[in-house]
């Protein structure tokens, strides 16, 4: 019976821990001179305390059930693709990186491989033309010069 409400208890615990962590960190913020009497630590301490209190309330009175996802794999694939994109973008250039990203996300949304490739092949150059050429926002160029 407690299991479905576990998500809220866990969230409460995370909030309490985070509040405690921030509060502890704030106590180390000692300055030799501050223009105001309370300095940089009082405010974060107060806010962290408030957050921890909210977390404690959630642990005592959880409310939400975590609804199971119908599909998990597509979300994980998309997340991994976005992280890799962040690392790869400056290395391989905007068009190849964006093409790969779009293909993965299109596949995650249930496109056939051919359609996914088409989606990436249109989106990546179109965005590059719009942003880099038309709007003059420099995007990273890879070894291919694009």
């Amino acid at each position, binding site marked *: 019976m407690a299991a479905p409400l576990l998500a809220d208890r866990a969230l409460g615990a995370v909030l309490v821990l985070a509040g405690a962590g921030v509060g502890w960190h704030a106590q180390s913020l000692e300055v030799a001179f501050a223009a105001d009497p309370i300095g940089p630590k009082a405010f974060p301490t107060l806010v962290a305390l408030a957050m921890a209190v*909210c977390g404690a309330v959630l642990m005592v009175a959880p409310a939400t059930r975590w609804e199971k996802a119908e599909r998990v794999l597509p979300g994980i694939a998309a997340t991994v693709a976005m992280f890799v994109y962040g690392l790869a973008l400056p290395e391989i250039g905007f068009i190849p990186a964006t093409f790969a990203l779009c293909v993965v996300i299109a596949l995650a949304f249930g496109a056939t491989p051919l359609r996914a490739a088409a989606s990436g092949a249109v989106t990546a150059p179109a965005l590059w033309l719009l942003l880099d050429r038309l709007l003059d926002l420099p995007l990273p160029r890879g070894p291919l010069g694009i």
Partner: protein
Amino acid sequence: MDAIAALMGGFAVALTPTNLALALAGCLIGTAIGVLPGIGPMNAIALLLPFCFALKLPPESALILLAAVYYGSGYGGRITAILLNMPGEPSAAITTLDGHPLAKQGRAAAALMVTGIGSFVGATLSVVMMTFLAVPLARVAVGFSPADYVALIVFALSLLGAVAPGNAVKAWAAGCFGILLALVGVDSGTGIERLTMGSMEMLGGIDFTVLAIGLFAIGEVLLLLETRMRVAAAALGHGERLTLAELARCIPAMMRATGIGFAIGVLPGAGASVAAALSYSTERHIAERGEHRFGKGDMRGVASPETADNAAQIGNLVPMLSLGIPGSGTTAVLLGALLMYSITPGPLLFAQRPEVAWGLIASMYIGNVMLLVLNIPLVGLFTRLLAVPAWVLYPGVIALSLAGVWAVANSPFDLMLAVGFGVLGYALRKLDVPLVPIILGFVLGRLLEDNFRRAMALSDGDVAALFASIPSLLLWACTAAALAWPMLRRLRA
């Protein structure tokens, strides 16, 4: 009549070719994202923000564009609600109750017509009220001391929990989390590093666009990925057109909805969804005295929430411009946009930067006329958007999101941070934690701390100074009520 003269000055700004074109672009984008489920105005503004900034648009032009996206989305949401029985944006949820039955009866075109007119009436009358109310409201706040501001901001944040439909404690926790995120980086008062976890990249603080794009655009797409979408749109229908008699019966409903919507909108924390729901139930109560078809397809049942929705959206802008306190998530994003331009909205905005404040207000008169034209004769164009498959749309949204982050930050670290916030946004949605308080806490966090420290400096550390003035006492009393209200509500239930 200073307001009229100032408004004329605003029209001089809003009527330049660039600003007219930006308003039109904003209206088009706004209606389109209103139509598309899963992409709300907040996502769209977060997405456009880095480009405004990178293109060095002047602040008034950027605000005209972004605000047009914001109030344009209020027109678009109804299309999806009526044709698809799902809200294109959250505040259109109520419109589905009568809108979809009407569509099934072949009267979608009539329902779209009456809601289009309602949106225009609600928005335009609200802009008129705003024209005369914004400056007097700002004058009240000119005399606010730092201690009064502390009370005002705490009140705005506590109200979020009280009026939100979900769990109040989660809303407050989210607000605290947002404030803490705002504190990351070098403390401006003393130069000490706070909450950076020793990371060099964090020294400058978390970029607003990184947070907004991550939480809203990326998080929303991740949530969409976990369900299979199966929806079928109702046809526009060639049934009977809207008759004048039907429209006439809706006029009193529209007037009441404008009043309710605007009043709810001006109140910080209560958004367009609350206004639409309250307006619908009020209208239903009134209609129950006579003949009605509420719930089975009554024109008043779509006109009322749509009018209130648009009136509340405009109302939300009033505290944002006059007090610097946003009333909703989207206005918080707009406030964040102004802060990126180093413009602090608030009591002095109308005096110091009239071109920004009045240019925006004037552009809203023009924008709503544009939207009326876009949404009545051209509504068919926007319904075609519903046929764009997800695998074309969402890869583009993600690519544009990440390109936007790159445009402002130019660093792989910030790209990763945005994706991290995306995962967080997904998890918080699953946990039913509202995201709006995070954004509100983030844009108000530093302001709250600055005013708190200033108040303490003035009183030499005496906490009693926070409760020393009449406005602050009133606001603290309201805060106490806002904190107690959800508990009372729970006890009663």
